[in-house]
């Protein structure tokens, strides 16, 4: 199909009549996830643009990024790896490994979130309050936003994991596991971008 085709003509009609099924060769839920990830990408891009623009102004004082962020990043990477392992196990039909992968993925994600919270506590203890300087405010804001999206992911994760534990067939849960993993990788990439921005400024 292209811009030059004339949908009213008999010639084209014969071709169009045979068309069936979705425009994209993905399950519906994956299509929605792709759009959701696009929306979230725009959201974080706008936060980053705002960050860069605000940074240029005179009162910006860079903050000392807590070193626990490196450990958190490690947790998030491990979490993604575990989810990916769950996916490949699901494809091979190994139910036990899927469970383990999902459990580990969730646990590491939680560890990441707790670590992020610790980073906040450290900053506060060091006197970096949100109202003190825009750099601080952005730090809290951006990590909170990313954390919220992680929490949203954990809701979906809970649903899939619960179904696994209730003994559903791996085949039934496979799509859920795959979508969780995709979202996890996506949030990892977003975090790496944000983290790079935060530590470099």
């Amino acid at each position, binding site marked *: *199909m292209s*811009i030059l*085709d*004339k*949908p*009213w*003509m*008999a010639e084209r*009609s*014969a071709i*169009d*009549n*045979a*068309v*069936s*099924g*979705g*425009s*994209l060769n993905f399950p*519906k839920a994956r*299509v*929605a996830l792709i*759009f*959701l990830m*696009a*929306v979230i990408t*725009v*959201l974080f891009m*706008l*936060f980053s643009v*705002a960050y860069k*623009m*605000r940074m240029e*102004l*005179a*009162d*910006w004082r860079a903050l000392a990024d807590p070193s626990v962020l490196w450990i958190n990043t490690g947790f998030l990477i491990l979490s993604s790896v575990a989810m990916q392992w769950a996916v490949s196990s699901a494809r091979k039909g190994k139910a036990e490994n899927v469970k383990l992968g999902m459990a580990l993925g969730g646990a590491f994600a939680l560890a990441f979130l707790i670590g992020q919270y610790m980073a906040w506590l450290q900053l506060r203890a060091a006197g970096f309050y*949100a*109202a003190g300087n*825009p750099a601080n*405010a*952005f730090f809290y*804001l951006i990590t909170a*936003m990313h954390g919220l999206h992680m929490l949203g992911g954990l809701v979906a994760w809970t649903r899939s994991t619960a179904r696994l534990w209730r003994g559903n067939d791996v085949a039934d849960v496979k799509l859920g596991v795959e979508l969780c993993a995709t979202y996890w990788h996506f949030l990892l990439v977003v975090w790496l971008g944000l983290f790079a921005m935060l530590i470099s400024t």
Partner: protein
Amino acid sequence: MVYVPPQEVEDVHLHDPDTFMTKYIWSQDHKVIAVQYSLTAIAVGLVALVLSLMMRLQLGWPGVFDFIDPESYYQFVTMHGMIMVIYLLTALFLGGFGNYLIPLMLGARDMVFPFLNMLSYWVYLLSVIVLMSSYFVPGGPTGAGWTLYPPQAILQGTPGADWGIVTMLASLALFIVAFTMGGLNYVTTVLQARTRGMTLMRMPLSIWGIFVATILGLLAFPALLVSAVMLLLDKLVGTSFFMPAIVSMGEQLDYSGGSPILFQHLFWFFGHPEVYIVALPAFGLVSDLLSTHARKNIFGYRMMVWAIVAIGGLSFVVWAHHMYVSGMNPYFGFFFATTTLIIAVPTALKVYNWTLTLWRGNIRLNVPMLFAIGFIVTFTNGGLTGLFLGNVIVDIPLSDTYFVVAHFHMVMGVSPIMVVFGSIYHWYPKVTGRMLDDRLGRFHFWVTFLGTYAIYFPMHYLGFIGVPRRYYAYEDFDFIPESAITLNENISIAALVVGAVQLVFLYNLVISYRRGKLAGSNPWEATTLEWQTPQTPPAHGNWGDTLPVVYRWAYDYSVPGAAKDFLPQNQPPSDDAPVQEEDNLGFDSTDPASGGGTREDA
């Protein structure tokens, strides 16, 4: 006849409602959700209408109505603008018409995620409730103007600076969540759930408009969310994202260094696409009204599709034309003036195509058609003033005057409302099974159409003579002549009349629900699928046992050689219902002299 293999689109399992609660309240049926969305939107829209009439009372007869003080005036302005743009038009076009038409026009049983769809409505309702709660918090709603510019939006002295602004921002955030849930549903349904034979280029333009507008919304609303969240933090936590160092009421505040311009960029990066989020569905719907009631294929279908897509894309690179007076770099202004004028090209193409659709059509001048034609006129009018404002040098003196008010009301107030009315008259018979009363409809049209001209046309002149917008009292300035005051009085009278006549419309909606003429399944003899359902109103699941199969595009009106002057999209080709062999669509495709349908070859 072309052989079509049996249905391959997978059928879906629907959640079947059985009680009153699951059928009408917690419904997951897209048609019920559409009605819920529409009624809620119309209800808040009425609030916004009343607010506008209050403003007109003050402007028409300054100081006469002492219950309108400056504070309440600014609250009227703000709530009116925000409700109309977001909670009425966006919600009605996408949540209302989008929900109703997408599955029906595409031959689907429902949206792909019915539960999410239901959630979307309830979160929307929550956002409306939070917004309305503004009236009950101490200090009342915010009076910051619908653009909510800091620093004034959160400074003492602006009405609602304590609570109203918080409920407003919270409500917007909720709305965005609701919209995103609905929007993911709409795009996925359009892409993945069309019935057999319904290719993208066979979709009615209504769907194209709604589809592209939804994508715009998904990508633009995050900018509003970002600005709302950051403004909320400035307000509640005392951060200085947007707030500069400032002395307010003789006191140095704790803010320092923030950038109000940053807010403006974020706001308009959302705000300009927003006007097309409202305009594109209107473009789509009106195309279908025109084609159906002119008994003629839409002129330049492919161009219409590409214009919608092009406008959608371009609408992301013109936002700073709202900021010409913000002190920006002149090269920046030059860039945005250029893109703004470029976007007028596809827009103008659409206007030509609508007009050419009418040309030599077999026009049935019924109520939907009247509104559709009213739209073309009004939109052209508003678009032309947009061209003036798009040029920096012209905009600077006109900025923040009534000229801008006239422009955007013509283009995004009256025009979309014309389409909303036209579409309600057009689709009401499908939703309820009964026709709206025709005579009341004509009366409603003429008073509304002429009345809105009486309201907004003189505002261009007010703008030229320099009357500023958002002034509560304007009568004691040397530069504003006496004539502005009498003119305003006239405008206010027209506004009261137009406001009152909407009651006729509401009465019509209510009375026709029980007493209207029975519509039958296809009263307008239209081609698109929603008119071909086995029951009217369509039952749960829309299509009975088998999904429809599509054999033609959406605009087979007056096809040469056909027995009838319309061929439904699901009508298989046959001798009586041919598909075009020769490409003779266009100026000659219908000959009104030969009566709807057949045509002697020229």
